[in-house]
């Protein structure tokens, strides 16, 4: 097991370098002047001053080299647009917000989605199954911007139940965005759990356990649930990464100072260092997320452990 982990960890370094190179080259390809924010043209001397200050007048390989050096010393560089902050500051102030939002959304997805799926599977083809799957399918298909808009309209404006329309301050303000972001994973989990449980319920060993006379709850709890959750864990990893990185629409609609919204605006603003810094951050999250999932998978499903080593 440890060999596996170490090997995977070693692989992350070239992967990370590749990610940095990709983003670096891509960003440089996009035309646009990071220092021209309004229609006012930047006078030549000022442009020269700015290029000099941010080392943009150096050849690209030098810039790349300096940047990589910076990454491995945990210095992600200054922001070209936010002149009094550097990327580390931006990450420090915004990333925890996105993390929190993603975590709550995920929590909602698990707390609502998994029981929903279990219920649907246990009461397969009965009315409660249909209703549960109706909710799940709605969450799956309806785009999150509509979910967010409807939630705001009904709960914050029309019925005014005490949740604000935007912001991320009090606990009340965290409710709607978490639900809006968590709706899709919730649906995903519900469907997935239902599917895997149904499959597992048909397996021979379950029938054997039932035939042996074990109580249904024990059957369900012990064997079925644990085995049904394996695909859920596999899906959870990338899904969590997707939730954290794809939250920018929710962040825009709810005016949440998170990192997703920042990413989009940094690309538009050509804030190279912010874009690259955040890409690296995401890459690290995704890579380690996958690693954790793989390890968990190894623990949960003994069959794969042998196959891997």
């Amino acid at each position, binding site marked *: 097991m440890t060999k596996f982990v170490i090997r995977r960890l070693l*692989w992350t370094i*070239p*992967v*990370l370098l*590749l*990610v940095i190179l*990709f*983003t670096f080259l*891509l*960003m440089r*390809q*996009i035309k*646009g002047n990071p220092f021209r924010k309004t229609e006012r043209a930047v006078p030549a001397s000022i442009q020269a001053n700015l290029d000099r200050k941010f080392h943009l007048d150096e050849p690209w390989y030098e810039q790349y080299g300096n940047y990589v050096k910076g990454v491995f010393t945990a210095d992600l560089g200054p922001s070209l647009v936010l002149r009094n902050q550097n990327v580390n500051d931006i990450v420090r102030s915004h990333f925890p917000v996105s993390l929190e939002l993603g975590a709550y959304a995920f929590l909602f997805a698990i707390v609502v989605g998994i029981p929903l799926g279990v219920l649907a599977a246990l009461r397969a083809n009965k009315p409660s199954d249909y209703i549960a799957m109706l909710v799940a*399918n*709605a969450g*799956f*298909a*309806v*785009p999150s*911007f*509509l979910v967010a*808009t409807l939630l705001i*309209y009904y709960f914050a*404006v029309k019925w005014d139940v005490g949740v604000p329309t935007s912001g991320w301050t009090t606990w009340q303000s965290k409710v709607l965005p978490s639900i809006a972001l968590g709706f899709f994973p919730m649906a995903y989990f519900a469907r997935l759990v239902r599917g895997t449980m*149904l*499959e597992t319920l*048909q397996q021979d060993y379950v029938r054997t356990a039932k035939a042996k006379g074990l109580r249904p709850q024990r059957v369900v709890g012990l064997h079925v649930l644990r085995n049904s959750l394996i695909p859920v864990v596999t899906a959870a990893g*990338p899904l969590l*990464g*997707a939730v954290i*990185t*794809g939250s*920018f*629409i929710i962040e*825009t609609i709810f005016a949440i100072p998170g990192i*997703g919204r920042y*990413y*989009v605006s940094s*690309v*538009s603003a050509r804030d190279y260092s912010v*874009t690259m810094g*955040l*890409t690296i951050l*995401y*890459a*690290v999250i*995704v*890579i380690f997320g*996958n690693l954790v999932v793989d390890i968990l998978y190894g623990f949960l499903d003994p069959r794969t452990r042998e196959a891997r080593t």
Partner: protein
Amino acid sequence: MVLNPQQEEFRERAMTRERGGGVEAGAPVRQTSLWRDAWYRYRANRAAVVAGVLFIVLLLYCILVPIFSPHDPYAVDFSEAYLSPSLSHPFGTDQYGRDLFTRTALGGRISIGIGFAATIAIMVIGIVYGAISGFVGGRVDNGMMRFLDALYGLPYLPFAIIVTQLFRTVDFWVMVIALTIASWFTAARVVRGQIISLKENDYVRAAKAVGARWHRVLSRHLLPNTLGVLIVFVFLELPGVILGEAFLSFIGLGINPPKASWGSLAQDGRDVYLAHPSMILIPSIAIAWLILCAFFIADGLRDALDPRTRET
């Protein structure tokens, strides 16, 4: 659960069918092919059939309405703005007096078009990459998979955004390219996984032992068996691509006006949703409709083409 006799028979045959498509000795001999069987099984799945019908309805709506519509979807006439739904304007009109029934259909053409184009592109690239990686195996496979890992590290939508910025203006093909580049890795992984698992099959080993050349093995045995998985994959990937396009359009990085996609129509609608909620609801419902249909069709196809995966 009670099945009708026809369903019973297919279930029976499905459960006794061997891997790889042979017929067990002693089984009833019936002149039929994999595809006919699949079709019958699909037809028996009610939800999939309904979804298929609804999907075709949606396609017809998008294709036919703009052809027969009496309204010019690009004409600007402010006196007709924001009309409520009526017989001549089933969905009402937008801010410029343009008929929304027609615009939604046109938007559908673009959204669905981008969806299918991108999905097929993803499939093609994925097949090539995955087939090579899975088939060749060994260190090449390892290297190619690590490279994929690197690409996985790039977050999907932001990466698509970066790619759209590489081009001056965003049109249909730019969106297709951006969405394809951002999401072809899953296809490659799936294909590779399939190829690897099939590679070890007896019949493939047999073919190799007999001396069949690699491209024959690939094209005659491996790929046709992955075809089922791939068709299902198209309908599974479609929603992701459509949602991706909708999200990009929603934040304003979508297709140029006056062309519209469902995502950009939704964005237009959001600004006025307090006064005219239908303008955001209609394109969102259209998206949801498409996604649900795609899913049930995918479920149905998967059950139909690969009966091993389900037991009920």
